[in-house]
């Protein structure tokens, strides 16, 4: 790192002056907090008693039969309270919010997992909560919109621009710059202006620390490779961070390849993007030749984002991590495979990591009497939120049935609709 908040040429603080004071305050509060045994103990306790950490490590033998004979271990972030890794960062920042004396949090969300985690922490700590969500995403993740509202959060659909995650971030930034005095922007991934990329990474590093120990205990050595999906990059950096200094451990990040390489039809920043600035950070950005942000596409809302955390840009350029796209089709096939072979329904985001793992396992050539390679995968979230998308994708319900079911639900009084037993 060349300067504070920099990862080589990436990172920094590309923000309106009005936000600088708040970023400096946040950096100070974070630095103080992590040196304060009381804060550390409080966060540890929440992670244990509320989130349910440590999350288990599960070897998936039937799934691994499709991975070229490798042994595959899943780090089960899907089993955390609220259903994904997002809660790790949220609890840390929510405690900081209270510590800074602020009473309101705002957040952006794509898949809804970060919004749900933020709404959850806000309820737990008695904070007001507003979540910005692209209008397109509110439709494809309607269940999570309902969850956030049940938890007492206000969900604001954002119709500007492409009406997805990047526009939700713009809107959250606009709210923050207006209300910064009493409001903390609880950013949900490892991008944005310093200190967010470093701070969010550190709150997620618990994933890697636990997984490293669990793999050592289970197989007696480090894994050969660690795989994760990369949206903004928080679950990936969380698990990678424990292995960066182990050169023998290959690190693989999988981005949304969407429908393929056509511009606007994917979110593979390291295939189609170039260095630029978006949302406060210098990093790789999918942009046209005028520097306008390009539209992106992915079947998974959580990976549908035109830029990526600056530390990933650095790890890409240094060659320490290999980033590859995984298409919608590949991700959905891996999604189905994990469901059928292991009885685990993954988030579609996490299914990108699973698809990459299958590809990697098959490519790791070895002779038969060698020990099988060990692949560690971050299963960043569970797929309950994606059941509707998956059911449509696989044609498990037909369009007409869905329309009729929605109509019935809308017409029926709640008591009857919910009266089927449990």
């Amino acid at each position: 790192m060349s300067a504070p908040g920099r990862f080589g040429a990436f990172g920094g603080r590309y923000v309106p002056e009005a936000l600088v004071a708040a970023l400096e305050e946040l950096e100070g509060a974070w630095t103080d907090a992590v040196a304060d045994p009381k804060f550390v103990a409080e966060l540890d306790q929440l992670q244990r008693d509320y989130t349910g950490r440590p999350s288990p490590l599960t070897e998936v033998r039937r799934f691994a039969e499709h991975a070229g004979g490798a042994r595959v271990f899943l780090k089960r972030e899907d089993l955390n309270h609220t259903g994904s890794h997002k809660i790790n960062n949220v609890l840390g920042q929510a405690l900081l919010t209270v510590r800074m004396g602020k009473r309101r949090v705002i957040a952006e969300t794509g898949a809804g997992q970060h919004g749900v985690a933020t709404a959850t922490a806000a309820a737990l700590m008695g904070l007001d909560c507003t979540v910005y969500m692209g209008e397109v995403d509110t439709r494809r993740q309607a269940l999570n919109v309902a969850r956030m509202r049940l938890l007492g959060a206000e969900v604001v659909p954002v119709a500007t621009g492409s009406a997805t995650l990047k526009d939700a971030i713009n809107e959250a930034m606009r709210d923050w710059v207006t209300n910064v005095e009493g409001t903390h922007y609880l950013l949900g991934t490892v991008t944005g202006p310093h200190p967010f990329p470093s701070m969010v990474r550190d709150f997620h590093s618990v994933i890697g620390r636990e997984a490293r120990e669990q793999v050592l205990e289970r197989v007696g050595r480090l894994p050969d490779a660690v795989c994760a999906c990369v949206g903004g990059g928080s679950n990936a950096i969380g698990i990678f961070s424990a292995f960066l200094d182990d050169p023998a451990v290959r690190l693989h990040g999988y981005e949304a390849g969407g429908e393929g390489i056509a511009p606007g039809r994917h979110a593979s920043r390291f295939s189609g993007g170039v260095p630029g600035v978006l949302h406060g950070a210098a990093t790789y950005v999918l942009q046209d030749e005028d520097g306008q942000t390009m539209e992106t596409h992915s079947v998974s809302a959580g990976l549908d984002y035109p830029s990526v955390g600056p530390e990933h840009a650095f790890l890409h350029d240094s060659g320490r991590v290999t980033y590859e796209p995984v298409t919608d089709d590949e991700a959905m096939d891996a999604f189905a495979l994990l469901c059928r072979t292991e009885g685990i329904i993954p988030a579609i985001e996490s299914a990108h990591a699973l698809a990459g793992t299958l590809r990697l396992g098959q490519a790791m050539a070895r002779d038969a009497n060698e020990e099988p390679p060990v692949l560690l995968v971050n299963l960043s979230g569970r797929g309950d939120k994606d059941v509707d998308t998956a059911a449509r994708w696989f044609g498990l319900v037909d369009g007409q049935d869905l329309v009729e079911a929605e109509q019935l639900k809308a017409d029926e009084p709640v008591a009857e609709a919910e009266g089927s037993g449990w």
Partner: protein
Amino acid sequence: MSPLEEVFSRCRDEGRAALVAYLPAGYPDLATSVAAVRVLAEAGADIVEVGVPYTDPLMDGPVVERAATAALKNGFRLSQLFDVVRAVAEAGAVPVVMAYWNPVLRYGPDRFAADLAAAGGAGLITPDLIPDEAGAWRAAADEHGLAPIFLVAPSSTDERLRTTVEACRGFVYVAATMGVTGVRSSVGASARTLVERTRSLTDLPLCVGLGLSTGDQAAEVAAFADGAIVGSALVRAVGEDPTLGRLRELTQELAEGVRR
């Protein structure tokens, strides 16, 4: 004397503040935006701030955001910015550009500075580039005789006010309130306080923006600042009346305001 120094010195001689008028290039289309900046200059704007439409304008409220989206949808290309800048200069006002950093970065800061200077531009306002991150831009601006114009905000510490005004040339953009661009019903006390704090640190002209829309508000700001910056209200006037009659009236009202 640089063109910006000249404007502020003339305004000082006339005992008034400068009117700084913002419109995005290419809104609603290139031809109308060229005509619109001419109207601004003819109707009394001293400085015209030409905005670069950008997909992710996080310092802008809905009026400017929608205008940017419309301009991009109608095919705005960055190279057309310089046509609009040239039109401002030809019409007799001083052009400055307001741009988010990524379009400039992608164009190449040095190439951007060269092309802006060649088109007659006097400076660049950067809403999401603070001096701390602006090393490359400040060097390029220096090289081509352009003024880097940064913002100060009510939340800026004294230390940051000092380093920011030291990095500014031409004038300082004083953000009147915490928030994004838009139309507000009152100027508020924070603008005056911030002007006073900034005044104690620099002799550069101080222009106040964010929220102004009427002649009365322009007059109110003119009483304590060197310039009044108006944006969203003008953008709305173009949107409501593409024949630009409404734009001309509003600009005249604002020009009268800074002369009160």
